[in-house]
């Protein structure tokens, strides 16, 4: 039973021709048909980052167009093209980037290793999920070629049932397919966490990232089918003219909004919950200390997942739904803010008496806390009825959800990418450039989006191609901020790619992490672990020591009292 990597530092420094998941087999088909969760995770990550690049370019075009209040700041960007651009930006960022980014890309890679498992419960379903993602993305591109859609990512009827047929139907089919990709991942994770936990890992010894992925997976499985049904109903209405949503055929457009937000509000938690899970790992590992308030954080993930299902109506305070419903939805909405606040305070308390390394992942983790605080606090203005009436569908909302979806979900994803990059690629990136880029992204982000709070509360509606001249100064500042942010991301892309070639070889455990993924080699071997390891308290850092020869940390499993339980397998 000593075949585990966890007997390090016994083996000599890594031999050059070692067998890992990247070198295990070769060739295009070995990737295209791989059942290895790590390869699927990497393919997801590459796909998500490419989509992020495309969606980001669209965002920069939008921001540049908004430099002046008049038309065609960029020659050729007419009102119609602008509308297509903001629709694509939203649809790509939501459906192709943020929703799959943490669960499907990082989660796929990390979750089975954290469990000490060889793979997820259903590896073939996992591969199917990725192929569905590709198919969904292909339909989105197809709709662009056939007649670009300009409905906004929300596809509100009856606008979406009146505009170009060729543009809207393919993208609806695309999102429908992407939904199944998401459902497959969620089902896989639920089963994997239930059935493949290693000996010793009770529910309350799971790393918090797993709690977050579990809560997320539940939402993915329960909420996504509603989106699928809704999109199918739109297609059916469009093709057969049976009145469902469009009043022209006797339907009700507000019903569509209920269906859409019944999915799309929980979808916000599909985006933010796994991000919170990452941040729990980042803050704890880089502070080199036990997470504070484990149970409160774990339960708050579950609470957010449950409450998240009951608040969709807060997107519709001005839609004409009854004042009584508005009141009920407003009240439930505030209940979500409590578990979110608990998490922030727990992360702060984790910093207290820590030993804090300001590595790049940690900087992203700290950025998350600041940005999520702003995003969460401004949710109070929007949850309160009287103020939301004024702020609804203005830039205040745009700023708020960018703070949550980009400033929080995506920033945590980038932080997680940096955290697990040595594990995924076996290489270290340049820390100095990492910190500079993180700073640029943080500053650029706030300049871009904080100004939009002011724009919104002053009354600037969203999705506007032309605007009143008095708003121009805010738009100019916001656009300049977006350029700074773009520079930060460009630098990030450069040093990460550079590290693949020239980066220092990564040790198994560069940061001093305690959970299982830091106890196998970087990059992990094909099977992750030769035998299923037994685990103890995954936040007990007292067994971690620095190893000079390794230039990294090692987990002294022999010192872990919880592993000396009777009948303990593995270890020495």
């Amino acid at each position: 039973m000593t075949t585990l990597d966890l007997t390090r530092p016994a083996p000599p420094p890594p031999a050059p021709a070692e067998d890992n998941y990247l070198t295990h087999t070769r060739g295009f088909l070995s990737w295209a048909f791989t059942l290895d969760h790590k390869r699927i995770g990497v393919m997801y990550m590459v796909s998500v980052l490419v989509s992020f690049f495309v969606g980001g370019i669209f965002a920069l075009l939008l921001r540049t167009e908004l430099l002046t209040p008049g038309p065609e700041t960029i020659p050729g960007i007419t009102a119609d093209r602008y509308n297509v651009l903001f629709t694509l930006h939203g649809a790509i960022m939501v459906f192709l980037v943020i929703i799959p980014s943490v669960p499907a890309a990082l989660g796929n890679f990390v979750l089975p290793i954290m469990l000490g498992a060889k793979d997820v419960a259903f590896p073939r379903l996992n591969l199917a999920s990725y192929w569905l993602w590709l198919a969904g993305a292909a339909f989105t591109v197809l709709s662009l070629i056939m007649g670009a859609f300009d409905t906004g990512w929300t596809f509100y009827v009856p606008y979406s049932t009146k505009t170009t047929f060729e543009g809207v139907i393919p993208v609806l089919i695309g999102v429908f397919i992407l939904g199944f990709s998401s459902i497959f991942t969620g089902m896989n994770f639920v089963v994997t966490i239930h059935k493949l936990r290693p000996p010793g890992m009770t529910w309350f010894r799971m790393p918090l990232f797993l709690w977050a992925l579990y809560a997320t997976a539940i939402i993915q499985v329960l909420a996504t089918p509603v989106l699928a049904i809704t999109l199918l109903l739109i297609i059916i209405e469009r093709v057969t003219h049976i009145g469902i949503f469009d009043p022209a055929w006797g339907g009700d457009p507000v019903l569509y909004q209920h269906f859409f937000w019944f999915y799309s509000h929980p979808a916000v938690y599909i985006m933010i919950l796994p991000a919170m899970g990452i941040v729990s790992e980042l803050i704890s590992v880089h502070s080199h200390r036990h997470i504070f308030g484990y149970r409160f954080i774990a339960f708050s993930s579950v609470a957010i997942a449950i409450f998240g299902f009951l608040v969709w109506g807060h997107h519709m305070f001005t839609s004409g739904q009854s004042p009584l419903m508005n009141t009920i939805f407003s009240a439930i909405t505030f209940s979500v803010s409590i578990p979110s606040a608990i998490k922030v305070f727990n992360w702060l308390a984790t910093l207290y008496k820590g030993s804090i390394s300001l590595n790049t992942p940690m900087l992203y983790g700290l950025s998350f806390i600041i940005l999520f605080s702003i995003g969460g606090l401004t949710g109070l203005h929007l949850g309160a009825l009287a103020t939301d009436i004024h702020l609804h569908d203005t830039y205040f909302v745009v700023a708020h959800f960018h703070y949550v979806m980009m400033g929080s979900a995506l920033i945590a994803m980038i932080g997680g990418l940096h955290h697990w990059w040595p594990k995924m690629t076996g290489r270290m990136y340049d820390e100095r450039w990492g910190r500079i880029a993180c700073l640029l992204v943080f500053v650029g982000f706030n300049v871009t989006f904080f100004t939009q709070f002011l724009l919104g509360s002053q009354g600037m509606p969203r999705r506007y191609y032309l605007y009143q001249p008095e708003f121009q100064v805010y738009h100019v500042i916001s656009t300049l901020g977006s350029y700074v942010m773009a520079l930060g991301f460009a630098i990030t892309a450069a040093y990460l790619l550079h590290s693949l070639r020239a980066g220092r070889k990564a040790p198994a455990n560069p940061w001093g992490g305690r959970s299982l993924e830091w106890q196998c080699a970087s990059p992990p071997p094909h099977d992750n672990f030769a035998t299923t390891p037994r685990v103890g308290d995954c936040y007990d850092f007292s067994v971690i020591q620095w190893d000079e020869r390794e230039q990294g940390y090692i987990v002294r499993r022999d010192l872990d009292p919880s592993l000396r339980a009777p009948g303990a397998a593995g270890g020495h």
Partner: protein
Amino acid sequence: MFPAILTSLLASAGPRPATVWMPPQASTVAAEVDFLFNFINWICYVFFVLIAVLLVYFVWKYRRSPENHAGSAQGPTHNTALELTWTGIPLALVIAIFYLGFRGYVDLAVIPRNAYEVEVTAKQWSWSFKYPNGATSNDLYVPKGTPVKLVMRSDDVIHSLFIPDFRVKKDVVPGRYTYLWFEAPYATGDARPEHGHHLFCTEYCGTEHSNMNRRVYVLEQAQFDEWVDKQARWIDEIDPDELYFKAGPRLFVLCSQCHSIDGRDGNGPSWGPRAAAGLGNIWERTRDLKTPLVGGRTLADIIGPGKEYGTPEDYLRDSIVNPARHLVAGYGNAMPTFRGQLNDKKLDALVGMMKRIDEFNPDGSWKGAARAAPAGE
């Protein structure tokens, strides 16, 4: 209670001017909304500063040097009392915020019985306001100090009526009626657009969504009565000979979202020369029966003795009330019908304007009879 006092204190002054966060307070509910907004802002400031200061302080205090490779640090792992405290305090605060938001919302949602009703029709991409005496307008005019109730409907997709200075907003949904009410305690006069309040469409509705904004003018009651009376009869007061240049530009506002005068292509064909298609202005190409139609036909197939329209004027007129009947080649079926909105005299004014379109500036204003025959003809 508090906002009511505030409102009465300010009643004699003008609207409270814009702050860094909020536009001017120009309705009776604005002060209450802003009070809540600022209340929440202060909660945000306090919590944000608390979080940011603690974060920076802890990171600075407990930072480690790059040479420090200690495997772990020892800190508390939980403290139930502390955790219950920071669950309880935010809970109490959000209950307070919910309550204030609800109370303010009741004021926004409960419409006073004696409110003055204005019918609102939204369509891609214009607003139309109709007053009890039958008067219509494209900007919204309301009497000062009277509750106004907007009864809103949409002709096509969802729109949303938003007046930032009043802090009110409501979606305008096809297939149902929605209400919005407000009371404006300060007069703006109607002399200049920049004195009016912005009225925006805030539900995305297509190409010209961002152009679907008008002004709200608040008039003294007497001034309003006079205006609405005149507005109902305005077209009757115009001399028939002056109809096309006095009434035409006012009515053209309805058309200008899609039709230009300077030849620029829009959602509909320009009324000016369509040089790119080798066609003259709307009257020249209609008179000469040149306009190509969808389906490969031209106007020559439908205008003339024994055909669908006896005269080019008949065709122009029917294009306004029955726009889907014949489509100009290259343009979709996008134009709403104006049947019932424009009476015979108004249609005559628009057709007259088309026939002398050279006399109008690109913004629809009349240049004067530039090419008309010399006086004394």
